[in-house]
């Protein structure tokens, strides 16, 4: 026995490896947790992603709230119209833009390919991504809600409204995420990077996200509210104003989720 077993053990470990086979998978939950943590760490390390996920939504929230009449948000208290819209924008940035770009680069750099040969199943991989994504969204929504409240946001409808908002966010996440995966699984990494950002900006301008559909001219209004961005943002505005869940919003989001998922499953290329 050595006086300093720790030191001896580490020297031993560096010089010799016990390479005898002892294969086996970690438990499924442990793999999902590990994957979700890994993706979250990588996301937080990436400055652009943090900018997109948190900084831009918060700047918009504070900027537009303080900008007075520069941006017309239609009827209602400004901050009450603005906060749910910025929440929808945050969901869109995380579930669509961030996810699409990250996944496209995972495909490009052979990460998905390598993981295909690991004990982590595709279901496990997707679950890990969803857990990481929902964690990100929880942080985003808490931050936006907090800043909104500090700026005088007054959500109505109590617990029922909060639950309905959660349901909308969940279906919205599925629809955005499936569309993001559709893009990431078929386009090159560069095309996805450009495309996902372009779609983000286009939807921000014409997708009834921050500026409510009521401020849009007539034909554009119908289009905007049937897009996932408009459906989620309008739905959140209605619910958090205490008007209850408007079913057409949920139906529109479910339809996008169904179309996106079906197409993504059919077309996704892992390499």
């Amino acid at each position, binding site marked *: 026995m050595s006086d300093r077993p720790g030191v001896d053990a*580490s020297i031993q*470990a*560096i010089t010799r*490896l*016990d*390479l*005898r*086979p*002892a*294969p*086996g*998978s*970690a438990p499924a939950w*442990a*793999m999902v947790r*590990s*994957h979700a943590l*890994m993706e979250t*760490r*990588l996301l937080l*390390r*990436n400055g652009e992603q943090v900018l997109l996920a948190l900084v831009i939504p918060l700047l918009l929230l504070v900027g537009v709230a303080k900008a007075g009449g520069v941006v017309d948000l239609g009827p209602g208290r400004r901050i009450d119209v603005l906060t749910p819209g910025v929440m929808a924008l945050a969901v869109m940035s995380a579930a669509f833009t961030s996810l699409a770009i990250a996944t496209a*680069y*995972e495909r*490009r*750099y*052979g*990460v998905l*390919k*390598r993981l*295909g*040969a*690991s*004990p*982590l*199943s595709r279901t496990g991989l997707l679950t890990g991504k969803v857990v990481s994504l929902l964690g990100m969204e929880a942080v985003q929504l808490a931050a936006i809600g907090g800043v909104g409240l500090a700026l005088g946001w007054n959500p109505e409808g109590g617990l029922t409204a909060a639950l309905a908002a959660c349901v909308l966010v969940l279906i919205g996440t599925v629809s955005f995420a499936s569309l993001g995966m559709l893009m990431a699984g078929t386009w090159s990494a560069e095309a996805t990077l450009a495309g996902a950002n372009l779609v983000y900006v286009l939807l921000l301008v014409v997708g009834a996200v921050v500026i409510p559909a009521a401020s849009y001219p007539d034909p554009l209004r119908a289009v905007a509210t049937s897009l996932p961005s408009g459906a989620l943002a309008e739905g959140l505005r209605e619910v958090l104003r205490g008007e209850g869940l408007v079913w057409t919003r949920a139906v529109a989001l479910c339809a996008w989720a169904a179309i996106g998922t079906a197409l993504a499953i059919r077309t996704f290329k892992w*390499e």
Partner: protein
Amino acid sequence: MEVTNLVMRYGDKVAVDGLSMSVEVGSITAVLGPNGAGKTTTLETCEGYRRPQSGRVTVLGLDPVTQHRALAPRVGVMLQAGGAWSGSRAEEMLRYVASLHANPQSIDAVVGRLGLGACGRTPYRRLSGGQQQRLRLAMAIIGRPELVFLDEPTSGLDPQARRAAWDLIGELSAAGVTVVLTTHYMEEVERLASDVYVVDSGQVVAAGSPAQLMAAGARGLITFEAPSGLDTADLLAALPPECEVREERPGRYAVRGRVSPQMLSAITTWCAKREVMPGQLNVERHTLEDVFLALTGKELR
């Protein structure tokens, strides 16, 4: 592992054309071939990435596609490129892959053994080619697999790292791990492989141990290297009867005949008189590179 009559096509192009090979448990099998010969396609079919279009593949007694979930934890894979997040750090990536396995190697031990400690907090995309390569090798062994597939494990490594990788691969085999690797380095094959498959245009053109391959067709042959332009007729005159001398390519001489100590001595004596040092002297044995070039031709792929 057993591959029988594997055929793989990409569009009109046949990548693998009726390839068969069989790998013994605990052996080191090298798959050798020019670029585009079908090595990687074969390996990736064994890894379960592609479904055999024709033929059969079994790995550890399992079908790599339909029984992929049962197989994946038992197999370690080193891809030819990529496989790590561009923003991940070496140790973090290794820790992540380890977390997917039940009894992984100690991270510190593997990091120490493959010299990955120097990578520190540098993201994968900014590591040197050799560091990326060593990390990929580490990722293949971290889960204590029974079988490892190493696609060009030492390409781009400096000589020190190459030797470290060879030692590790040798130890894997000694510990009972089956190793299947592709390579372009003949020295790697001679040092490591117990079995070699030379593949060209999707077919096995030669198979056997390195010694068998080098001995095949080398009966009655002595080769050596010396300055080009030696007088071969004069050398022939100094040799026992019924020999043949040719300068096969500049500076490389082949003597054919009944190989005997006298014949070898006659060659070296003739050289000594002319102050010529015969190098790379091979008696009834081709170099692996010669075998390879003879089998696969000399044109560039």
